[in-house]
């Protein structure tokens, strides 16, 4: 029974690994922090797995837990267990190829935003509907629209300055 649950959990994680990594990347400053945060998100997901019950889509739930962890988690708390390195052969913080440089520009830009704005812009870039964003963050879709309009304006200004 437990193995079955673990198997299902593993399937869910593998399906949404990119989503989790993206959140961790946007809320971290180096590769180690990404690894730490990724593991913490997995622990939170596992803890909440019993209570998930499929009330919302799996993607919405994964985003909720990942963003809740990234925003609320105390960094000191994360270091209580030995971090297992992720199987990633690129370093989006250090690599010099043109693609990674482009990605890094995006990271640098988003990092300048407040935590909630960072979450909103990330969900918007992912192409998630305002209704779903509202359900993840806890605000109305109208508020999401208004706030995103302001953030986009801010991002454009920041992008021009870069």
């Amino acid at each position, binding site marked *: 029974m437990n193995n079955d649950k673990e198997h299902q959990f593993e399937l869910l994680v593998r399906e949404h690994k990119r989503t989790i990594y993206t959140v961790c990347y946007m809320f971290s400053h180096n590769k180690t922090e990404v690894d730490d945060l990724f593991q913490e998100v997995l622990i939170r997901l596992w803890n909440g797995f019993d*209570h998930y019950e499929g009330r919302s889509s799996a993607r919405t739930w994964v985003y909720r837990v990942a963003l809740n962890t990234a925003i609320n988690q105390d960094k000191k708390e994360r270091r209580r267990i030995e971090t297992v390195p992720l199987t990633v052969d690129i370093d989006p913080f250090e690599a010099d190829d043109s693609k990674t440089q482009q990605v890094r520009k995006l990271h640098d830009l988003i990092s300048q935003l407040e935590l909630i704005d960072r979450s909103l812009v990330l969900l918007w870039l992912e192409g998630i509907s305002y209704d779903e964003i509202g359900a993840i963050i806890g605000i109305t879709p109208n508020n999401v629209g208004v706030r995103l309009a302001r953030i986009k304006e801010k991002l454009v200004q920041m992008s021009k300055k870069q």
Partner: protein
Amino acid sequence: MENNNLNELEQLKAQYETLKEQLDQQEIVNDRLMKSSVKHSVDFYKRYRWLQVISYPLMAFLGLVFINWDLDGSFSAKVFWVTFCLAGLIIELLLTRKLQLKTLENEDLLTLSNHARGFKRLFSLFLILNYSTVMIVVGGFLMSKIGEGVANLGVAMLLLGIVMVFVIIVGIWEVRFKTRPCDEIVRQLEAIGTPAEKKPVFYMNQRWFIIAMMVVYLGLDVWCGYLFAKHLKLVGDTFRYERAEGDFSTKGSLEIWEIYNLTWVADKARFLETTMVEDNDSLVYRWSADTTELALYTLKKTTEVGPAISSAVLGGKPLVKRLETGPYKEGTFTAIMLELMPEATILFKRMTEDALLQPQPVNIAVVIDGQVYQEWRIANAVCSAFFINANPNWSKDEVEAFCEQLIQQ
């Protein structure tokens, strides 16, 4: 301009797509990571509960060791301490269970942040209450040591002050520091606008549960302070006696006299040798009960039998209806409040009212078994009760015996 902005945003989207492309080619998750995450899935609240399960028995054990060492193994102190620790443990375990904190991981960001903030505030309040208990215990302990000459009042007060400052600083720090990240998130979210669904931080039944737990905890704190203070003899025993309905029996002699004159005497025998002291029609002489400061009182006869008020004046009826002492503490005066019977009250009131009309101040004396026990100046009309002080050198049993003697008057 509009197009430029759109281009910038399109560029951001393109950069994001690049990131997705790069990540799609990565394995990211490995078996070791999965196993480690499942194995180490002990969240904060679980660890917090374990901490309580370990720390409360430890606290109970250390307390019992201390009680055996310094409080002569007092059974009541042991029972209290174990109850206190057990209640604290149950309250905290129930609280974390009642709040259903585990399910919060699935809530939206605003709800989670509000809950986290509420819980952290609550937790800080618990800490402040816990520290205050420690402060009461430490305070009581130090105060008890003053009597033993181990600590002096200045040192004790200084230590108490330091503990109090520590409690306040830790309390403020807990609330400010622990809730600051949540405050910031809630502030940012509330700046955006109205929440999708306004959820209360704690549901109604949770709120009442928390308040009830707080009251229980506070009650335990007060109980803790009282028991320790009582055990360490900071709070003394009190005595209370009341004459039974229809009981008019009397025993002994309690009299209230008006003082005519007072003479301080260094040596009683020598004074008697050199001075003629004899009662006459209007005056009587009574020695003070206090042997350290010997005084001879000249008392004025104001009734046919002599004293202004006595059982004899009332035709053999009793004087005292009820008496009650303040807390007994060795080496200090224990105040005894005497409430008079209705007939005695009328006489006493008349006596004090008349005294206030006199051009000179009038002093009265309480005479017990032929010795002046206490005197005071009449400053206002007294109705039905007055205070006398028990001898500070008396033991608790002696004070009790004195009270038993007084109630029979």
